[in-house]
């Protein structure tokens, strides 16, 4: 069971109060993109064993979207951060570096 803290309302609750929204920080590829970019946007996902970044929505609470960093193997949640972010905050990355030396996720490490 995941325990998440919503950065919008500050509630800490277990995952049944939230709803997962898939991988974080996807860049939309639309008209003007080539086929490979569109295919990647639609279908290619990280699916890591370990550190992962996701979107979540506080669906039964304040209703807001946010981002979460967690370990898919241990279910440890490293932290949550606002939806209005194109990349995880540096202090969160430092936390993950300390806990999971050598981790990689896309161009983050």
């Amino acid at each position: 069971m995941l325990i998440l803290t919503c950065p919008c309302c500050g509630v800490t609750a277990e995952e049944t109060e939230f709803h997962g929204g898939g991988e974080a920080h996807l860049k939309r590829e639309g008209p003007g993109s080539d086929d490979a970019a569109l295919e990647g946007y639609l279908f290619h996902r990280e699916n890591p064993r370990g550190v992962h970044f996701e979107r979540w929505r506080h669906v039964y609470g304040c209703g807001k979207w946010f981002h979460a960093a967690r370990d898919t193997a241990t279910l440890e949640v490293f932290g949550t951060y606002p939806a209005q972010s194109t990349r995880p905050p540096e202090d969160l990355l430092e936390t993950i570096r300390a806990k999971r030396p050598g981790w990689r996720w896309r161009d983050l490490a």
Partner: protein
Amino acid sequence: MSDPVSALHGLTVEGSVRVEDLAPRGMITLRGDLSDATVSDALARAAGLAVPDRRGIAVEGEKRLAWMSPDEALLILPRARLAATLAGLTETLASSHALAADMSDARALLRLTGEDAALREVLARLAPVDMATFATGEIRRTRLAQVACAFWMPAPGTVEVICFRSVARYAFDLLAQAAASPRIS
């Protein structure tokens, strides 16, 4: 105009925790940035209550002013004052990026009364909330079993619950059954 009726016509179950469906009240939802002073001042003036902080609820008589999210507040007030309050709020916020809407018929309002520990146990059985630390003055939006709800304690020994009107019977039955089962703690 026809008279408003509550979802369950005042249905009440007596017990160590009493569960009742309350008479209809006015409910105004305000959407707008609550950190914007124009919006929060207008709301405070209309409500006659200070706008509560994050996850807070202000209580005075039949009035409630609840923080629902960074851009949503809920004002509960006597039905008789609904129209004038909504009109005033709409006028004050005419040039702001905010919207006040009459949501009185969208929700049901239930009340639980009983011993504090019993009330906390009833809610702990149904909602993923740590009821040991839940305090008066706080509002919690969460779920009761399978439906969305919000609850708060206006005073020790009382809990008020709102849910969508369409699931009022489901929420009432959940609470009544949880209240009727033997205490564990």
